[in-house]
């Protein structure tokens, strides 16, 4: 089957999935409570009539299926509606936060992947050596530390005591640049990335390294590796070409999951570093029952997961000639 035809078919299959998930999310959300009640809780002078006016304004008094169909109609036209707070369109809110979250997450995921490859290969080759145990210890340390605690420790050391790196946000005001000896916007963004990315990389690295190490240990026992060695192929080529391609599939699976879930994946890190991202916005939206924003971010996550799944399947077929796309 042609690749293009396969991809088109998979995308068509996504449509009922997306609709199904939107229905479930929509109805679960309505079971959670009355957003107008929550929004006006802090205001004792508001009257019930005013609340009714707000409910009518946002269409919350219509039967739920009617509300859903209205939402669906807007969604198909690419419109997620207005946030209940601040009166901004959800599209606009998501648009600016999406980029910041993707930047932080992709940077961390890709860097973790790049670090994991030599670390995993090396600890498999030098199994039970000091290096192997050190790599394992560092990665287990990373996975066991609570993200908020590690983040705060990094801020204490690198921002508060050493004054080397900014502790909050994705950008600094140009007037603050000289504080960290920075002169251009790119370096400023990079400086803001370092601490939150470090937290995310440490949290994810253990999975990558352990998966690759296990895969490599299995592959290095295979006859075809000994056959390559018996043919005089250099050790570097055996490890990084012949063995790695056989051992990397679980890592591709993990990578696909991480990229799919990255949008809502790191709210804690985003909170600790006041990162203007979707994870933080998502949690805030849920706590306030900001329906349009919750639905918007849920749909973005759904679509990302489905696309990442498709890309993972394509990657499998590209790696293993025995995998057929059908």
């Amino acid at each position: 089957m042609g690749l293009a035809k396969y991809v088109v078919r998979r995308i068509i299959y996504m449509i009922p999935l997306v609709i199904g998930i939107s229905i479930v999310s929509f109805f679960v959300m309505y079971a959670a409570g009355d957003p107008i009640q929550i929004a006006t809780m802090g205001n004792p002078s508001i009257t019930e009539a005013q609340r009714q006016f707000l409910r009518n304004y946002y269409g919350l008094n219509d039967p739920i299926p009617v509300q859903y169909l209205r939402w669906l109609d807007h969604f198909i036209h690419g419109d997620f509606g207005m946030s209940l707070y601040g009166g901004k369109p959800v599209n606009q809110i998501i648009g600016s936060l999406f980029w910041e979250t993707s930047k932080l997450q992709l940077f961390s995921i890709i860097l973790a992947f790049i670090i994991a490859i030599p670390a995993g290969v090396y600890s498999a080759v030098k199994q039970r050596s000091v290096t192997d145990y050190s790599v394992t210890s560092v990665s287990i340390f990373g996975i066991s530390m609570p993200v908020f605690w590690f983040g705060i420790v990094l801020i204490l050391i690198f921002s508060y005591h050493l004054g080397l790196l900014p502790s909050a946000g994705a950008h600094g005001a140009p007037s603050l640049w000289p504080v960290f000896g920075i002169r251009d916007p790119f370096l400023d963004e990079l400086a803001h990335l370092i601490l939150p990315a470090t937290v995310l990389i440490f949290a994810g690295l253990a999975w990558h390294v352990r998966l690759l190490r296990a895969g490599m240990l299995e592959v290095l026992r295979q006859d075809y590796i000994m056959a390559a060695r018996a043919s005089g192929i250099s050790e570097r080529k055996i490890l990084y070409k012949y063995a790695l391609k056989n051992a990397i599939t679980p890592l591709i699976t993990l990578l696909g999951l991480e990229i799919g879930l990255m949008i809502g994946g790191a709210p804690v890190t985003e909170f600790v570093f006041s990162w203007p991202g979707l994870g933080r916005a998502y949690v805030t939206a849920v706590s306030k029952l900001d329906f349009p924003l919750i639905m918007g971010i849920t749909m973005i996550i759904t679509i990302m997961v489905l696309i990442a799944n498709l890309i993972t399947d394509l990657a499998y077929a590209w790696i293993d000639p025995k995998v057929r796309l059908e």
Partner: protein
Amino acid sequence: MNILEVEKLKTYFFTEAGVVKALDDISFSIPKGSTLGLVGESGSGKTVTAQSVLRIVPKPGKIVGGSIFFEGEDLLPKKEGEMRKFRGKKISLIFQDPTSSLNPLFTIGEQLGDIVVQHMKLKKSEAKEWVIKTLKLAKLPDPENAIHSYPHQFSGGMKQRICIARALLLSPKLLFADEPTTNLDVTIQAQIIALLKDLQRDLGMTLVMITHDMGIVADMCKWVVVLYAGNVMEIGPIDKIFEEPHPYTEALLKAIPRLDQTKELVFIPGNIPNLIDPPSGCKFHPRCQYAKEICKEKIPSLEDIGDGHFVSCHRWKELNNRG
């Protein structure tokens, strides 16, 4: 003139259960241009011998002593980088299972081409021509298309032809074939044996057939080395081995099923011994029908009994009315 001389070779596996003496002080030599049979039961050390010569013994195995002279040069002190120039170029190995010895994720052309590039520093296009030429030599049909195919697209027999071509890419002087027919259908076995015989004759290689099939040995080999539990039991020209065999070889020969056989199959009672804690004296004595007190107490030495025949047995002379 010997192409390979193995002297007092010891290869041990340092496992958690203890030290497995897979090769315990073995010596033999291979005359240039001959076909030699390396014979023994599973676990006798045949494969480890080939791996030791190429110095690719898998962990936790290690060569702990002895020397391996290839064309007069000792291979054991060589650095890893130097040793790599021997592997696949001067000494090659064909594996038992063609399916598991080909990498499933790379095309035939890629896997074989890399070997040519590694040793010859050729361009990819030149390497491709070289690979096609060698696949033709191994009588693989349609090699021009085969190089773009993956291993799973071939049958077992075809895969073994590809593996033979891989071993022959750089016209090695010494070729180990480790039970190359064990995993194949009987009809294909005969074809592969015929191919190996032709190639050995046409290319003037020295061929070591690792096998437990005495039929193949009788068919192909001029010389035989019989291994048992990491020891050499017997070395000799094929006719001497069949005429006046070591008691272990005799038991192996009796175990060959025959078409006119009416009685039950003959087998050697017992199992190959535990190599962590091997029997005292001659390692074969617990299973030997001729064993006496001395066999339990003293390790026999490999004795020259003339005509290039060497036997490691306390009782051989007595049993064969010599001396």
